């Protein structure tokens, strides 16, 4: 039933105007505000933004991984290959996770169970979703480990996680994520905890396999340089809102939003040698009492009165939008609004 839906639609994931808050004793934290993210089939999409901007919350909400009862969806919808995940119960979500969508988290050191052999952890997942005997499952596991450039898959399957290096563990986790051929892989900072030398290898492994199998991928990262080489399109998030999105090259070569521009000016790769790196002054807003208007406005050098009173909506051409009063469509609206 799933394949039919996938074939009939071009979308792997369609998040529409998702708003979400975490209720606390001192008030609700508005973690996501009107977030819309679309991932086409076989497309590789990046979400960038600094820690706490809602990147992981977005995908975890979409896959039902946030702790039950600790959050509240206040609006919007999520469609994963046509199925609404927000309305699924836990049992339905268990069928979806691992089969339609898999997530690779950061920190591979703790992401594998320390007391269970690698082989069993892989076959448990495979046998959960596929009609496979144990020997079938072991064969699938072995093949996919080999595909992750693991030299002796048979030996690794007999080992425990503590016997493997961080890079090897992350390969195992990627193998696990791909093991049931999900249509979408969410790679949540997959290389943040790894040595720089293995980072590129790991990212290529994910990219290559995804391209070969037509799997969609969402790369979540605070590192623009990492995602820029892998992704077709980029979403830039700030304080629970999407502030800009577009094709990777366009966003990086001609960033529109002041936040994106500032973010890119912080990258050593993009600054001439010996020139000082910039830092974005100020701090991310407190989402329990967010600032009025645009959330970036308190740190923005270009802010005008309108920025402080009304929040800008994403506007622009199809596939290239910016949420800023000082840019593109926003500018026109701003000017119309300021006319007497």
């Amino acid at each position: 039933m799933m394949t039919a839906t996938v074939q009939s639609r071009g979308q792997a994931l369609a998040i529409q105007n998702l708003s979400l808050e975490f209720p606390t004793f001192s008030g609700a934290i508005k973690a996501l505000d009107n977030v819309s993210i679309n991932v086409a089939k076989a497309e590789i999409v990046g979400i960038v933004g600094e820690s706490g901007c809602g990147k992981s919350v977005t995908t975890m909400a979409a896959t039902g991984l946030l702790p039950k009862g600790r959050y509240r969806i206040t609006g919007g919808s999520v469609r994963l290959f046509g199925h609404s995940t927000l309305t699924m119960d836990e049992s339905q979500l268990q069928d979806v996770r691992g089969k339609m969508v898999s997530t690779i988290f950061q920190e591979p050191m703790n992401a594998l169970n320390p007391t269970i052999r690698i082989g069993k952890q892989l076959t448990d997942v495979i046998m959960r979703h596929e009609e496979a005997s144990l020997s079938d499952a072991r064969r699938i596991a072995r093949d996919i480990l080999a595909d992750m450039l693991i030299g002796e898959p048979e030996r690794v399957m007999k080992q425990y996680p503590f016997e493997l290096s961080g890079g090897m563990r992350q390969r195992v986790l990627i193998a696990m994520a791909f093991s049931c051929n999900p249509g979408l892989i969410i790679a949540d900072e997959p290389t943040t905890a790894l040595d720089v030398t293995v980072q590129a290898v790991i990212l290529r492994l994910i990219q290559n396999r995804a391209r070969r199998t037509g799997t969609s991928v969402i790369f979540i990262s605070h590192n623009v340089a990492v995602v820029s080489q892998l992704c077709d399109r980029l979403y830039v998030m700030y304080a629970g809102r999407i502030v800009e999105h577009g094709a990777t090259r366009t966003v990086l070569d001609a960033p529109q939003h002041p936040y994106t521009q500032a973010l890119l000016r912080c990258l050593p790769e993009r600054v001439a040698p010996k020139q000082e790196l910039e830092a974005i002054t100020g701090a991310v807003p407190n989402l329990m009492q967010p600032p009025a208007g645009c959330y970036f406005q308190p740190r923005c050098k270009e802010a005008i009165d309108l920025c402080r009173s009304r929040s800008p909506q994403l506007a622009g051409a199809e596939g290239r939008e910016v949420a800023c009063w000082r840019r593109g469509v926003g500018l026109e609206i701003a000017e119309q609004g300021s006319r007497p």
Partner: protein
Amino acid sequence: MAITRIIIPRLVLLLFVVLGVAIITFTISHLIPGDPARMIAGDRASAETLENVRRNLGLDRPVVEQFTIYIGNLLQGDLGTSLRTNRPVAGDIRTFLPATLELGSVALFIAICLGVPLGVLSAVYKDGPIDQIARTVSVCGISMPVFWFGLILIYLFYAKFQILPGSGRLAMGIVAPERITGFLLIDSLLQGRFDAFRSAVYHIILPGFVLAFANMGVITRQIRASMLDVLQEDYIRTARASGLRKRMIIFNYALRNALIPSITLLGLALGDLLYGAVLTETIFAWPGMGTYVVTSIQTLDFPAIMGFTIVASIGYVLINLLVDLAYMLADPQIREV
């Protein structure tokens, strides 16, 4: 290979522990005021009689000589002769120890069978009604004195409803099965004596449950705490993200890791059972080591007290060895390094 590396040093250590305990108990027994000869001969015995008793017991010899004799006998498995029963202490212990071990094993079994699932449920449904009940029950278990709880149960089930016996190991009129292991439950089954088995089961329910209850509380709390820790771990999130079923995640992926910190506790619980048994046995007139030791202490029966202390310390060392072996079983990181 790794197993022998753990076991052999422990067995060597055991010798030193026994020697150390022997020195300590021997010293204490000679420092404590109270004259065993006087206890035996009675208050009104003449000085001559007293002297005779002393000579018979070897108490007139120099302390160092007494000690070497004691150690020499100890190495041959001779724990001396009880001043009270006039029988070899080793024989007395062989008679009474199985009853205590049987009671302790049943209690530990009940404590684990109730405590572990209760702790798991409590952690999985944290702050829910099940958790509240489990926490109340475990606090009751930990804080209720064994003698009080035991008496309440005897009053309810023996005196009032008359559905369970309140004392002894077997009903009157039932001949005990021939001794093989000393465990009535096992011996009666081995000999096909189902009447004795039934009676033994009925008799062990109340004392077993009383003894189990306190340890169950400790186990529940420990399992709850370590389950809560483990459920926060990244690998549980990985398992959830792979779509594994909740039951599988809880029992195959979480509990196994949560048990590791609980193993030490189970070892301690086993030790606790020994001392809890003293009170429980007294209340339920259970003919085990507890009753034997209490009477020995009351009559200043030093050989018996020392014998029990040595056996108990050997027991502790063996329990610790079991704990280490259990660690190896549960944690591959210890096993394979």
